[in-house]
């Protein structure tokens, strides 16, 4: 048993002109609910496809439940519940047909679980897949993954199209039957508020690179916004300062740790600390992703310009 349910080393997928995934080192602890976050086109789905062996990496490696892609691809598929980005199953089959079809592929498949979850998530089992609404298609895909009794779930946008009641029912299932049993859930989502509640780890990917991987408790306990007024304020990001906004004599610093000490230092240099406030996941996400955006003008320090040596 390894300590991580999912581990990747320098995982990369390069296309002719784009670096979809660019050297990813993921560490997903066993038993965690891991929120994999990023903007559209950040590389989430490509990463997930490589984890499941549905796309071949250009470089690097992925280990799932201690098994390696692509050598153990079949065993990984058997032991991982997977819902892909496109919620598609066989059009002409009903939920009941699909269950019969899927059952023999998965050693831990449970009809009991299927009956339980189809009730909890209110999945119509006797309607052909093609006739289902988007939300019901998503539910059926989730049901097929949950009925596998897998020790790892990999879910790409699992809540898209779900109404709030079903979404709540799904979260209850994931927390009670998966996280409560020490099983692992790796999910991508744009719903930051939801992730913030149920996840205990988050990874933020942007332009194929991992900008942050941390436990949410650390983020809540240590990440702070420090609002400062004063002269000659620092304008460079570093290990501690991950984003700066504002300019001139009023700035906001977004720091990863030791906010109090950072503030004390600025205060000792004559600055006024207006406020130190905690950050929620959305603010952390926006600040991290924004600083990576190619906004060249007015972004001091980011653009290489001819600078006189006296500065």
């Amino acid at each position, binding site marked *: 048993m390894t300590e991580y349910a999912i581990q990747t080393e320098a995982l990369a997928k390069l296309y002719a002109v784009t670096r979809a995934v660019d050297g990813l080192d993921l560490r997903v602890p066993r038993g*965690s*609910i891991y929120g994999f976050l990023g903007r559209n086109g950040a590389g989430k789905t490509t990463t997930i496809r490589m984890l499941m062996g549905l796309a071949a990496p250009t470089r690097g490696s992925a280990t799932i439940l201690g098994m390696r892609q692509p050598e153990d691809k079949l065993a990984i598929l058997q032991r991982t519940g997977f819902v892909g980005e496109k919620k598609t199953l066989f059009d002409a089959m009903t939920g009941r047909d699909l269950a019969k079809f899927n059952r023999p592929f998965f050693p831990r498949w449970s009809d009991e679980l299927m009956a339980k979850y189809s009730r909890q998530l209110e999945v119509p089992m006797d309607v052909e897949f093609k006739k289902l609404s988007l939300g019901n298609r998503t539910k059926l895909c989730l049901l097929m993954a949950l009925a596998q009794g897998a020790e790892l779930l990999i879910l790409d946008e699992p809540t898209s199209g779900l109404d709030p009641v079903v979404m*709540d029912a799904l*979260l*209850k299932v994931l*927390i*009670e039957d998966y*996280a*409560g049993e020490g099983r692992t859930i790796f999910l991508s989502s744009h719903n930051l*508020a939801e992730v*913030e*509640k*149920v*996840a*205990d780890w988050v990874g933020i990917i942007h332009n194929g690179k991992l900008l942050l991987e941390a436990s*949410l*408790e650390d983020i*809540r*306990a240590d990440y702070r916004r420090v609002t400062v007024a004063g002269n000659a304020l620092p304008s460079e990001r570093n290990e501690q300062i991950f984003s700066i906004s504002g300019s001139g004599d009023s700035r906001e610093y977004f720091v990863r740790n030791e906010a109090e000490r950072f503030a004390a230092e600025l205060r000792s240099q004559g600055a006024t600390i207006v406020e130190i*406030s*905690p*950050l*929620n*996941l*959305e603010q952390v996400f926006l600040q991290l992703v924004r600083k990576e955006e190619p906004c060249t003008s007015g972004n001091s320090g980011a653009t290489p310009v001819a600078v006189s040596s006296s500065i």
Partner: protein
Amino acid sequence: MIIHVNSSSGLPLYLQIESQLKHAVAAGALKQGDSLPSVRKMASDLRVNPNTVARAYQNLEREGVIRTVPGGGTYVADNVPGLLKVEKLKRLRPLAMQVAVEGTHLRLTQEDVLKLVEEAFEDLGAKP
């Protein structure tokens, strides 16, 4: 017992759970020997990660607010934490200091602040 967590408040979720349970015990809504929901039950009711609840329970147990019987559930502790009064006072001093500092900054008088603390005790006592 009703607990609410707010994921956008910036206060760590486990601290929110801790402080609400402490409040419930202090106000008498939870009495000595009352049983608390299991980590799993509380997590699924609140739709929060079980590790978050487990961490709150661990901290409360360390502080003597609750006790866990191995394999037999979690209860509000029968006895006040077995600490010397000196220790208890020492634990509360930083909070008292913080109240004094904030009060001074707001230009409140010592009487105003003491009255506020008295009112807080009255509020607790008024609860069932």
